[in-house]
């Protein structure tokens, strides 16, 4: 039992963090919003040069072959800095599909391009125009399309960093490259991975939101002192810190279970996502409250992060779906519950 990260994992994460710190600032995110073009192609190339995009891609496809525990740390930081480009999706969804299926790997000849992945849990196409291909996951089939041939309807997200397109796949062959059948277990695997990915984004966002709130309460003075010195404010943010702390280990265990194809990986992923949803909700609410009216403005950067959470809470497993899944699973596994089964 060694539930810690290796030095290499931490070094890689920290190097990536330094890149994000100077290259993904709220100003740059806002300028993408203003240009109506949140996907910055230059930054996407930088992410490739840094090895981030292909970090978990198998070495035989030119990737670094790192595990999803490492990816999880990277994606957490993408959340922390609200990176608009869909690198988290590339790692946890399309790279995973390529790694797990030689058929798909053959069809995706441009692995450094963004490949958008949709499923009923995340049906709107993310960054269609910035993607080269689109993979639509059915219940047990997987279809690969050329993105340029898809003519969908643009949708406006409450997060301007998310470019979304609606498209009805049924009965449409437009741009279809190939459909693979009998893919149920792979689809299930990608859905599980999507849960872990979105949970990691939420935890990163939550950490950032709390950091912003803490900094604000040190800065903002009322009654002659920083509002952070008042217990009502302290306790609100302390509770937020508690929620974040107790979501992390669940998240890392879920990533570890994915890497090791643990038979309970989907349950672990659902736990991680549900914990992360609850954490992000409380952290967002308490942090906005700590900001007072300033938190409710467009000018303050806080909402860049909070609204991103609104989306990631719902895609790749929302509360209702996760609760139902976990409850059914628990009823089935009842005899195997209890402390002695935590790691079985």
């Amino acid at each position, binding site marked *: *039992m*060694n*539930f*810690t*990260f*290796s030095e290499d*994992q931490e070094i890689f994460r920290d190097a990536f963090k330094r890149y994000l710190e100077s290259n993904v600032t709220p100003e740059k995110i806002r300028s993408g919003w203003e240009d109506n073009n949140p996907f910055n192609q230059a930054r996407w190339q930088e992410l490739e040069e840094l090895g981030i995009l292909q970090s978990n891609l198998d070495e035989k496809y030119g990737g670094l072959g790192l595990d999803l*525990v490492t990816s999880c740390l990277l994606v957490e930081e993408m959340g922390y800095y609200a990176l608009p480009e869909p690198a988290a999706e590339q790692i946890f969804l399309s790279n995973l599909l390529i790694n797990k299926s030689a058929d798909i790997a053959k069809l995706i000849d441009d692995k450094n391009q963004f490949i958008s992945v949709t499923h009923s849990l995340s049906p709107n196409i993310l960054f269609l125009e910035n993607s080269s291909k689109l993979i639509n996951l059915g219940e047990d089939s997987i279809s690969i399309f050329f993105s340029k041939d898809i003519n969908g309807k643009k949708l406006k997200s409450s997060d301007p960093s998310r470019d979304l397109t609606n498209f009805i796949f049924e009965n449409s062959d437009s741009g279809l490259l190939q459909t693979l059948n009998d893919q149920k277990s792979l689809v299930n695997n990608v859905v599980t991975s999507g849960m872990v990915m979105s949970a990691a984004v939420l935890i990163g966002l939550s950490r950032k939101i*709390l950091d912003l709130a*803490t900094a604000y*309460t*040190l800065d903002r003075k009322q009654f002659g*002192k*920083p509002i*952070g*010195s008042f*217990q009502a*404010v*302290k*306790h609100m*943010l*302390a*509770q937020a*810190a*508690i929620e974040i*702390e*107790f*979501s*992390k*280990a*669940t998240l*890392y*265990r879920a990533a*570890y279970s994915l890497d090791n194809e643990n038979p309970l990986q989907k349950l672990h992923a659902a*736990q991680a996502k*549900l*914990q992360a949803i609850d954490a992000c909700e409380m952290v967002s609410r308490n942090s906005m409250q700590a900001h007072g009216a300033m938190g409710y403005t467009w000018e303050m950067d806080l909402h860049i992060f909070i609204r991103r959470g609104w989306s990631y809470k719902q895609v790749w497993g929302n509360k209702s779906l996760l*609760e139902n899944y*976990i*409850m059914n699973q*628990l*009823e089935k596994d*009842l005899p195997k*519950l*209890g*402390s*002695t089964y*935590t*790691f079985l």
Partner: protein
Amino acid sequence: MKIGFSDSQKKFREEIREWLEKNVPKIPLNSFDTKEGFEEHREWEKKLNSGNWSMVTWPEQYGGRGLNLIEWLIFEEEYYRAKAPARVNQNGVFLLGPTLMEYGSDKQKEKFLSAMATGEHIWSQGWSEPGAGSDMAAIRTTAFKKGDKYIINGQKTWSSRAAFADWTFGLFRSDPESDRHRGLSFILVPLDAEGVTVRPIPQLDGEPGFAEIYFDDVEVDVSNLLGGEGEGWSIAMATAGFERGLMLRSPARFQETASKLLSLYFKNKDNLSGSIESKVLQSWLRAEAYALNIYQTASKLMAGKKIGPESSLGKVFWSDLDHQMHQTALDILGVSSELEEVVADDVASWIKGYMFSYSGPIYAGTNEIQKNIIAERLLGMPR
């Protein structure tokens, strides 16, 4: 990262499981907050010790097994699985024991550690006073040195287990000129000393789980001073650190409660509303989250990292969780939940646990104090 148990850890689990299956009393003991139950639990401590299971985390030189934290978590999991008796001497085993090993003289270690391990000395805590609760530095009970004795005068309160315990440990003001956290000393006091009056305080369940201790010119030998005179505060902080940390509240206890709650829920589910379902689910989820967090923390500690104020995060988390789980169980049990009787669904244990769960957010530093610590020391918010 490698999550899972090694073969030797699995073997250790088998070993403790087997011993407990053979030795845990088939009929539950009386509560250790009754005279009769206290002695039954003392016997159990002796029994544990006979199998060398009483002080598993203590180093071998002090009669322990020198278990590391992961092994200790396994031990606890098996202990709760076997429904073994509560540890009447936890003040000694988990709080004073490690403190003695760090600060005690060889003579003190010799005198107290093995008596603690066998259950011969059961310890109570003497921190709080009527005017010193959350503000512990306001302690006024004095222990002034006279020759080779300390003369103790004053009053302690909320002393857990003091109604029937043999000894108490706590902080006393040894420097008459001092105030706040300076001039305090950590002293061990036998409760049968002349001038000690123990007045038990019945708790919410009606049993005297804690007591007031009055000291009226009580003479204690100077050899009962732990560490240096006037160094009591820093030693007490170390003790409180142990308490808030892993040792006192292992995750197994909450996971077992969560499983019990799930069973209760599935048995009655046809008559229950959605809000109950979601609370049951939350309980299980959070008990698991706590366990995973503790395994991660234990791994970090074993890799040589330190934890400090982080332990306050856990204290708030588990105490809120414990209350929520018991509250939900009572909501499922409905009208029978008030019955302190042995009836179906283990009703009596739920209502007892529910009462006890009210104390979690209060003892070992209230959750409000913990949140101040989190805000000030982890988040860097101003005092």
